[in-house]
C-alpha cells in the first residue's frame, strides 16, 4: 500500500500535463480503445481474410462456370472465344468482371458494420461510456472521433482486400484469354469506391449503436437494413405494374450497390445518384445519433 509521501508527486502539476482536451487527443484515445481490445484486433484481421476469401471463392465459381462452358463447347467441336465468354456477363446483371475487387464486400459490410455498432454499444453495456463522457464532456468530439476512426479503418481494410481480391482474379481470367487488368473500365473505380460503401455502413452501424445503446438490437437492425429488407424488396418486383420495379433501388443497400457499378442503364438511377442517396441514408442515421448522444443522460 502506498504511503502519503507517494501522493506528493501529484503536487507537481506538470506530471499530468496541462494541454487539456484536443481533438487529436480524443482521436488517439479512441484509437487506444479500439486496438486495446484483443477481440477487435482479431476481428479486423479475420475480416480482411474473409473479404479476400469470399472474393476468391467468387472468382473460383465464375472460373469453373466459364471452364465448364469452354469444355462443353470443345465437346461440340466449337471454340469459345473470350468475346463469347464476356457476353455471358451482360452489363448490369451484377456479374461484371470489373466488379471483382468487391466480390467479398458483403462480408465486410456484415463484420465492419457490426464492429461499428459494438464500438459504442459495448461502452453503454459496460458503463465505459460514463468514463468517456467524463473525459470529453462535450461528447460530440468523442462520437466524431469514433466515426472518423471507423470510416478510415473500414475504408483501408476494404480497399486492401479489394486489391488483394483483384490480384487473385486477374491471372485467372487472363488465363482464359479474357481482357482484364487494372486499366479495364471500372476496375479502379471498384477498388476505390467499395471502401466508401463499407465506411458508410460502419457509420450507420455506429449511429445505430448510439441510438439503441444495445449491441444485439443495433446489429439486428443493421443486418435487417442491409440484408433482409433488400431481399424482401426484391419480391416487390413481382407486384404487377412498373412502379414497384423502381422502388428497391432507393433502399440503402441497393442505392449503395448501384454506386459501385459504372455506366448508365435506362430506368435505373445512375451510380452517382446511388451514391448521393446512400450518403443521405448515412446522414439520416448519423445526425440524429449525434443529437441524441449530446442530449441524453448517460
Amino acid at each position, binding site marked *: 500500500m502506498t504511503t502519503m509521501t507517494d501522493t506528493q*508527486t501529484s503536487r507537481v502539476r506538470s506530471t499530468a*500535463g*496541462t494541454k*487539456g482536451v484536443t481533438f487529436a487527443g480524443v482521436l*488517439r484515445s*479512441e484509437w487506444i480503445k479500439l486496438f486495446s481490445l484483443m477481440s477487435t484486433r482479431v476481428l479486423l484481421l479475420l475480416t480482411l481474410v474473409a473479404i479476400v476469401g469470399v472474393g476468391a471463392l467468387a472468382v473460383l465459381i465464375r472460373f469453373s462456370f466459364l471452364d465448364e462452358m469452354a469444355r462443353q463447347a470443345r465437346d461440340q467441336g466449337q471454340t469459345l472465344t473470350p468475346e463469347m465468354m464476356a457476353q455471358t456477363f451482360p452489363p448490369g446483371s451484377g456479374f461484371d468482371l470489373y466488379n471483382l475487387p468487391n466480390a467479398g464486400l458483403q462480408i465486410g459490410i456484415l463484420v465492419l458494420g457490426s464492429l461499428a455498432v459494438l464500438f459504442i454499444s459495448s461502452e453503454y453495456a459496460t458503463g*465505459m461510456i460514463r468514463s468517456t463522457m467524463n473525459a470529453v*464532456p*462535450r461528447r460530440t468530439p468523442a462520437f466524431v472521433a469514433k466515426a472518423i476512426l471507423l470510416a478510415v479503418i473500414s475504408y483501408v481494410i476494404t480497399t486492401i482486400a479489394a486489391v488483394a481480391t483483384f490480384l487473385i482474379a486477374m491471372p485467372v481470367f487472363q488465363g482464359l484469354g479474357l481482357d482484364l487488368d487494372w486499366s479495364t473500365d471500372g476496375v479502379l473505380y471498384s477498388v476505390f469506391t467499395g471502401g466508401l460503401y463499407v465506411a458508410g455502413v460502419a457509420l450507420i452501424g455506429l449511429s445505430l449503436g448510439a441510438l439503441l445503446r444495445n449491441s444485439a438490437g443495433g446489429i439486428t437492425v443493421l443486418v435487417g437494413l442491409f440484408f433482409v429488407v433488400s431481399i424482401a424488396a426484391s419480391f416487390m418486383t413481382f407486384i404487377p405494374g412498373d412502379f414497384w420495379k423502381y422502388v428497391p433501388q432507393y433502399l440503402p443497400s441497393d442505392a449503395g450497390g448501384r454506386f459501385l457499378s459504372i455506366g448508365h442503364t435506362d430506368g435505373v438511377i445512375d451510380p452517382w445518384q446511388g451514391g448521393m442517396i446512400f450518403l443521405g441514408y448515412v446522414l439520416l442515421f448519423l445526425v440524429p445519433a449525434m443529437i441524441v448522444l449530446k442530449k441524453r443522460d448517460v
Partner: protein
Amino acid sequence: MIEATGLTKVYGSKTAVDGVSFTVKAGQVTGFLGPNGAGKSTTMRMIMGLDRPTWGTVTVNGLHYADHKAPLHEVGALLDAKAVHTSRSAYNHLRAMAATHNIPTSRVHEVIEMTGLEAVARKKAGGFSLGMGQRLGIAAALLGDPQTLILDEPVNGLDPEGVLWVRNLVRYLAGQGKTVFLSSHLMSEMAQTADHLIVIGRGRIIADAPVQDIIAGTRQVKTLVRTSAATQLSALLSGDGVTVDQGQPETLEVTGLDARQIAQVALDNRVLVYELTPQQSSLEDAYFDLTKDEVEYHSHLTGGPAGEFAPETAPATAGK
C-alpha cells in the same frame, strides 16, 4: 468550488433531487451524507454533466463541467467503479482516458502506483474485485491531478487499509487547497474524514454545516441513569417532552431532561441514584435524528404480514 443552485432532477413521476442549493468550498473535505436513494449520486452526476438537470444549474469553479477546456484537470470523479470496459486492462483504460487530455503515460504509471494497482494493471478490468475496481476508479479520478475531486462512496468495497488510505488521501488533497466532495451513507466514515457536511434526504438538503455543529445541534441528549428504583424513578421523570427507556435492570435512558434535573427529581423523592452519565451525542445520532423522516427504504426487522414490508412511499427507481 462547486456551486449548485436550485438543482432539480425529475425522472418520470419521481423527483430524485428537489431544488437543491449548496456550495462546496475549496481546502476542506465536504461530506455528502444521506440514506440510499436520497439523491446523492444523481446530484454528483449532474455536477459532472452526465445527467442534465431538469431545473437549476451547477458549476465547478464558475463554469459548467463541460465548458472547461481541460475537464480532467479541473475535476476528477469517481461516480461508478463499473465505468470501465470489462475486456480492457486497467493500464489501457487509464491510457485511453489520459490521451484525451494529452496526459503523458508517465502520469498513468504514477496513478497506478499511487493506488497500488501495479500487480493487476495489465489484467482485464472485468475480473477486478470490488476493491480493485474502486482503486481503478480513484486512479482515473486522480489522473488529471484535478483541482476538485468528487468521489461517490469511495470506500465502498475497500479493505481497512484502503479505507485509511482514502481518508488520508482526501485529507491531504484538501490540505493542498483542493476541493473534495465525498458521498457516503456511512456516518462513522464521515465523522472521521469530513470537515463540513451536507445531509440530503429524499432529494432535499436537510443540513449544511460543519461536522461539529451538526453533532452539537442534536437536541436529543441522552442521560444514562442507574438506580435501585428504576420503575419508580421512571414514573416520576415521565412527562411532557421526556422519554424514559428502561433497558437493563436498574438502568434508564432519559431524553428531554439534563443530568441536574434528573438528580433533583431523585433527591426530592429520596430515590437512590448510583450513576448519572450524560451520553455524548455522536454524528450517528445526529444523522438518524436528521434523516428519520427522510429515509426512502425503511427496514422492517419484525415479522408480520407481507404488506408491512412494503415501503411507505412509492419505490424509487433513481439513485442507483
